[in-house]
């Protein structure tokens, strides 16, 4: 009887697991389908001249360009450079933001003193800062890494510090009833309970660092995706002139606007 019951349950469980699996496949298939449909529509509308393929390009052209650039313009080197700079600045931002947030948590007086400065630094337009950084630090890869850090650092510090402060008062009290010090509270309560927060902040930071790196490369670099984008838009401008187009400037900005998110998501795929 019990055996029978057991089998009955496992049959139901099996059904449940099957349904779950099916659901997962459906989700993944739908995701892929949306992507393919988008590519298909893009390609078709370019071929049938619903859109001007010279301006909007087409998937086949993009693939050809990627292959071409990989072969003749070291696309992988550019991607590698941007990736490398992004990872370095991401790593430094993570270390530095945790260190500063810990300092602020240790001394509430220090955090009171520095709070307005942090808010101001965070709201500073970083893209405006990049040219200044290059003037101050010179046109070096270091400068680009600093530019990448500048975008993510202050927000990360503010987020982490706010999270650290939200550590459960009672749990801290528990440590103090054991005769623990502030250091014990930090390592046994505050940091372990902030791990999910830290992961969240890191996810945001990797994207922000990439934005900062591209901005830095726009302004001064010999290689990297930002360099490619600027280079590409300038070449495009010359073509426009040759084709007798006048509204160069508009199209240039249009092109950057299109290629930027594309390149961002491409390099994001590599990172994550």
């Amino acid at each position, binding site marked *: 009887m019990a055996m029978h019951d057991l089998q009955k349950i496992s049959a139901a469980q099996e059904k449940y697991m099957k349904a779950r699996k099916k659901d997962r496949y459906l989700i993944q298939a739908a995701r892929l389908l949306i992507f393919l449909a988008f590519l298909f529509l893009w390609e078709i509308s370019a071929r049938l001249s619903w859109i001007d393929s010279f301006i909007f390009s087409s998937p086949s052209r993009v693939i050809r360009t990627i292959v071409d650039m990989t072969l003749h313009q070291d696309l992988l080197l550019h991607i590698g450079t941007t990736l490398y700079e992004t990872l370095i600045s991401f790593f430094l931002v993570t270390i530095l933001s945790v260190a500063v947030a810990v300092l602020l948590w240790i001394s509430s007086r220090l955090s009171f003193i520095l709070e307005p400065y942090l808010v101001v630094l965070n709201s500073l337009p970083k893209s405006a800062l990049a040219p200044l950084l290059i003037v101050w630090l010179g046109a070096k890869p270091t400068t680009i890494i600093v530019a990448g850090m500048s975008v993510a650092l202050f927000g990360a510090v503010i987020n982490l510090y706010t999270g650290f402060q939200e550590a459960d008062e009672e749990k801290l009290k528990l440590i103090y*009833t054991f*005769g623990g010090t502030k250091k014990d509270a930090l390592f046994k309560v505050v940091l372990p309970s902030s791990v999910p927060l830290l992961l969240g902040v890191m996810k945001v930071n990797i994207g922000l660092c990439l934005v900062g790196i591209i901005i830095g490369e726009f302004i001064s670099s010999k290689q990297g995706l930002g360099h490619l984008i600027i280079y590409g838009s300038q070449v495009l401008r010359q073509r426009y002139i040759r084709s007798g187009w006048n509204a160069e400037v508009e199209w240039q900005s249009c092109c950057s606007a299109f290629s930027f998110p594309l390149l961002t998501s491409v390099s994001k795929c590599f990172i994550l």
Partner: protein
Amino acid sequence: MEKPLLELKNVGLSYHTPQGETAAVSHISFQVPKGGFVALVGPSGCGKSTILNLICGLLKPEEGQILMNGTSLPEKPSNIGYMLQKDHLFEWRTVYSNILLGLETQKRVTAEKKAYIDKLMVTYGLDAFKQARPSQLSGGMRQRAALIRTLALEPDLLLLDEPFSALDYQTRLNVSDDIGRIIKQEKKTAILVTHDISEAISMADTVIVLTRRPATIKNIIDIDLEMPDRTPLASRNAPLFKTYFNQIWGELNGHA
């Protein structure tokens, strides 16, 4: 007469905020003998927990003195165990490493201590859950784990700050019976803060009734249920239980 383990002499404390000064406790004097079990009852928010915070050194009294074994408290007394309202087991640690937390903080993890913890875990039915996460334990088991975490420090004095208030009623009765027995068995001295009169009578030898804020001592009542080796649950059936209940109820409501 034997020297009391703990003695409070005319202790007073106020809280200071930018809005002003609030007297939390004043003129508190009582003694706890070794092996005794004292319950503090009073209206909610009267400053009961403040008294425990003073005893364990988290707060410093502004007036009066707190003596332990006849000498004043050190900066960080390590021989006092404190159980908070919730168990506060850390989800990022296993049950076993949660129990080690206090010893770890005081840097006193030794082989003997570990053996002692193992013994306690076996005695109180937690040995199968050493590597479990706290969320896998029932409310009662969690509270027992928290008690073992406190007992692992081998404290001379246990402070219990409404340690059962987060539990549902049935679990609460069982756990308080459990913990009351464990404390008797391990021959610990304890101070329990509660707003539950029945709980105070069933567990303590002495009940101290406090007034509204600022807390002062209204009355000290010795509980004698004429029942040798009573357990907290059995105490509730004692004929004298109701008498004490009514007396304390009267004291709390100001018509005794």
